[in-house]
């Protein structure tokens, strides 16, 4: 299961759907909004998604993880919209009979999701500047007030 959520994620609620008597292992990954990234002081950020294709590609990644690893459930929910420091940007939960599969499937899911799902992140910095992550091109810079451009 892969879905987007415009509202805050609650890990305890999300984990309830993973309950399974056959499961011996549950691995979760949470991506949190950090106060610093690449040396810059982050104030907040926005996630924007291409919903239809994000959900299709997310579902494909979940299906791949299920083929590659012996898992019972694999859920991924990604936030969209405006997030403050410390907020949960993405939540993944994987259950399996054995822990090796749960760890490897969870890692696979987040690595592939970050690389392939059409979701974009705009970071807002303390000084007022903002940048679309991974979209810088030669000559771009973050112009911080008080510094020469």
């Amino acid at each position: 299961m892969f879905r987007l959520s415009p509202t805050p994620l609650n890990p305890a609620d999300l984990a309830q759907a993973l309950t399974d008597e056959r499961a011996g292992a549950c691995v979760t990954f949470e991506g949190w909004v950090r106060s610093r990234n690449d040396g810059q002081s982050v104030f907040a950020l926005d996630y924007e998604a291409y919903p239809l294709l994000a959900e299709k590609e997310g579902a494909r990644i979940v299906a791949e993880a299920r083929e590659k690893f012996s898992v019972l459930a694999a859920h991924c929910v990604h936030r969209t919209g405006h997030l403050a420091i410390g907020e949960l940007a993405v939540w993944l939960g994987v259950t399996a009979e054995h822990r090796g599969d749960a760890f490897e499937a969870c890692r696979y899911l987040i690595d592939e999701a970050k690389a392939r799902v059409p979701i974009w992140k705009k970071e807002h910095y303390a000084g007022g500047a903002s940048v679309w992550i991974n979209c810088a091109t030669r000559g771009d810079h973050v112009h911080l007030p008080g510094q020469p451009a």
Partner: protein
Amino acid sequence: MKNLTIRYFAILREQRGLTEETLTTTAATPTALYDELQARHHFTLPADRVRAAVNDEFVAATASLRDGDRVVFIPPVAGG
């Protein structure tokens, strides 16, 4: 000539200043269409950093565009 719908997301949406437009073009492929749009709207991302989706599926940069296609150019992603 074909009529296409283009949707914009993220940095391209901001640089274009709108989320969707329709246009009439001779561009045969996503790459040709991006080149046309980039020249007109001064998109900063070079073509080789943008993927294409047509009718909500990823396609090759050299895929054939058809009349009525809905096209999205996908900047480098940054989920997670």
